[in-house]
């Protein structure tokens, strides 16, 4: 039924099967056979199995969550910037959660918990690697779709269900979870410990379990697709760094999320069936709990065994996107391609052996702690290699300052600032002073929050034309960048000083501390800056949705004159990506400004006497 097509198909639109293309020895059989099946609205936009549509679903759901998560932070910043000041509108909106227009302590903890959970998992994990792994993996390796489009679709819908559960938890009578995004027991294990420890925590755990299934389904697909479905000539050493980064991200997720699932299952058992994995000697409301013999620190180990790889799951896709955007817009080959790959691998490996640096003050055995200090500080080496390579890539380049490029450069700046403070924290002796202060908050918001967002923005501005066939507005992009860049530093730079002075994180108010009065004005300033940055993001949203419908239409399928394969597909890319045969790859993706050519796509055969790539 599917005989090899010798003449090019008459109908240039690929209508073949995008699922079964590989026999049991792994040979790809790609024949564009003619079997027209019409997509209806549901299979095209809702239960779509096209990786490009699934990418858009992840992106837009992620944007929704970014809006919610960002809003939550603005609300709790109001309390921190203007403590005890009444804003009647808050009571109008939130009712009993903000009596008299002042946010209640319970509500405050709910806000910071959900802010952290939403941004780390739903925005910067699902929204970032979900979007770009789906969009770029098949397009940049030359595949028709993911290995299993069906599981890929399930991955999104598990994420969607997780989203529904998390969102629903806001409307519970006792409110959403309020125990911190890390959900440490005993707060998270004992129902009566706080308002959000009851039903809110149940919803949180169910939501996270669904989320873990989603990322495992996605990750398995990304890994097998990259390994098995590369087109002819796309050897591992000709893959764009985006694909390398997304592959390693997926591996990190595959190996660490199951451990979080394990930790969550044990937590659920402690909460429901009376086991005591994390509980020992707990007194609540004057009576002792029957649970005995476990250890709360155990949870922290299991959590951070995921938690630390998780922060790299967040940042690695941004590494990849930024590398690609920097090289394309500097019109120069990426500097140190192999070193970039090796440092990605090194970071991934080290990520699994440093988790206890989040636990230096838990009474960790000092010998064990010293091992973790050593391993933690090692990560500075590959990180620095990457930073120097990015700088060397743009050095003396013919830089095109597109909004994507600005965000990529901003990413490098942010990553350096935040990485440096990581080295402070990695020393257990310093961390005993700095742990759980605003110094840590500054560290991880700069290195993870802002950096990963910048990587994501760079990606969205750069690949928007591929997604929607139109361009985003540049002027709005520039305003968005500068306000965010300056604003983010205004928010997080001062926090370092507060942290060094000992101001603890996760405090509802500092009324009781004379010594922190001096930071009242600074807190007010940070809150104003946070609001400014939040509103700048609305600009981005407007730009994004406006441009989907009214943006300047693309006339050229390769607007950035880039080398990678996704720009060889038609502007309106159908399911199956390439209308005819799959492209063949002859060179690495970074032949910019080579032998007088500004760019040479990967599909251009090597010329007489030319040696490939790097």
């Amino acid at each position: 039924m599917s005989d090899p097509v010798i003449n090019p198909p008459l109908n240039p639109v690929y209508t073949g099967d995008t699922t079964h293309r590989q026999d049991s020895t792994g040979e790809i059989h790609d024949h564009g056979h003619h079997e027209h099946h019409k997509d209806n609205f549901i299979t095209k936009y809702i239960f779509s199995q096209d990786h490009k549509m699934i990418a858009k679903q992840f992106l837009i759901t992620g944007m929704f969550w970014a809006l919610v998560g960002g809003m939550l932070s603005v609300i709790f910043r109001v309390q921190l910037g203007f403590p005890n000041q009444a804003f009647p509108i808050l009571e109008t909106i939130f009712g009993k959660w903000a009596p008299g227009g002042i946010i209640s302590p319970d509500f405050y903890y709910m806000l910071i918990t959900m802010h952290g959970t939403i941004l780390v998992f739903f925005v910067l994990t699902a929204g970032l690697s979900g979007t770009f792994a789906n969009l770029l993996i098949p397009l940049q390796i030359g595949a028709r779709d993911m290995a299993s489009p069906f599981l890929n679709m399930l991955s999104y819908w598990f994420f969607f269900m997780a989203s529904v559960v998390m969102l629903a938890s806001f409307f519970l009578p006792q409110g959403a979870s309020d125990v911190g995004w890390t959900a440490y027991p005993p707060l998270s294990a004992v129902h009566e410990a706080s308002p959000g420890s009851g039903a809110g925590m149940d919803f949180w755990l169910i939501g996270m379990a669904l989320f873990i299934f989603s990322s495992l389904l996605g990750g398995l697909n990304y890994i097998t697709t990259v390994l098995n479905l590369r087109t002819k000539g796309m050897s591992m050493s000709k893959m764009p760094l985006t694909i390398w980064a997304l592959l390693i991200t997926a591996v990190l997720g595959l190996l660490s999320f199951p451990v979080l699932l394990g930790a969550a299952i044990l937590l659920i058992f402690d909460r429901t069936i009376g086991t005591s994995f994390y509980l020992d000697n707990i007194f609540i409301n004057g009576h002792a709990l029957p649970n005995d013999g476990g250890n709360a620190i155990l949870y922290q180990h299991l959590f951070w065994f995921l938690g630390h790889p998780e922060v790299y799951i967040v940042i690695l896709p941004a590494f990849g996107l930024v590398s690609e955007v920097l090289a394309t817009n500097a019109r120069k080959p990426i500097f140190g391609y192999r070193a970039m790959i090796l440092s990605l691998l090194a970071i991934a490996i080290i990520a699994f052996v440093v988790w206890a640096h989040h636990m230096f003050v838990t009474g960790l055995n000092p010998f064990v702690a010293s091992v973790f200090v050593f391993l933690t500080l090692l990560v500075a080496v590959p990180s620095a290699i990457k930073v120097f390579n990015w700088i060397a890539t743009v050095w003396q380049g013919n830089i095109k300052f597109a909004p994507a490029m600005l965000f990529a450069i901003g990413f490098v700046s942010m990553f350096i600032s935040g990485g440096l403070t990581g080295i402070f924290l990695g020393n257990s002796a310093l961390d005993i002073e700095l742990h759980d202060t605003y110094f840590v908050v500054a560290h991880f918001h700069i290195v993870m929050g802002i950096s990963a967002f910048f990587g994501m923005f760079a990606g969205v501005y750069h690949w928007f034309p591929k997604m929607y066939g139109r361009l985003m507005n540049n002027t709005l992009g520039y305003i968005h960048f500068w306000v965010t860049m300056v604003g983010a530093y205004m928010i997080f730079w001062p926090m370092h000083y507060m942290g060094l002075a000992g101001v603890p994180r996760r405090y509802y108010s500092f009324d009781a501390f004379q010594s922190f009065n001096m930071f009242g004005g600074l807190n007010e300033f940070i809150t104003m800056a946070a609001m400014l940055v939040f509103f700048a993001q609305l600009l981005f949203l407007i730009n994004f949705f406006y441009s989907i419908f009214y943006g300047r239409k693309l006339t050229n399928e390769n607007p950035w004159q880039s080398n990678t394969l996704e720009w060889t597909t038609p502007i309106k890319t159908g399911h199956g990506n390439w209308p005819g045969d799959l492209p063949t790859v002859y060179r690495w993706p970074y032949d910019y400004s080579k032998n007088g050519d500004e760019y040479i796509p990967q599909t251009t055969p090597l010329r007489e006497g030319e040696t490939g790539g790097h």
Partner: protein
Amino acid sequence: MSNEHGESANMVKLILKTTLWLSIITIVEIIAAVLLTDLFERNNMLIVLNSFYIIMSLAKAFFIVSVFMHLKFEVKFLAITILIPMTFLLFAVVALLAEGNSWLQMRNY
């Protein structure tokens, strides 16, 4: 195609041989657990017996993965990609056993 049958018969033989090994190891482990535990405990040598169990379990795991799961006959690099992650687990086991031990010390203070 003529050696297809011979190959198939060989494979069945290998499967049966592996089964035999798995059984023998299990029987030896159980005999040791039932008969020798007291002896080793009295002489404070339980660690020897426990190391024996661990090594034997790893041997069983090796048989199952290499023959039953056919990994021995796959491309070597596939096996490598599967085995490398397991070293992370090894590190985690060592770290958490040390931690468990230090919890005990602290409780005894």
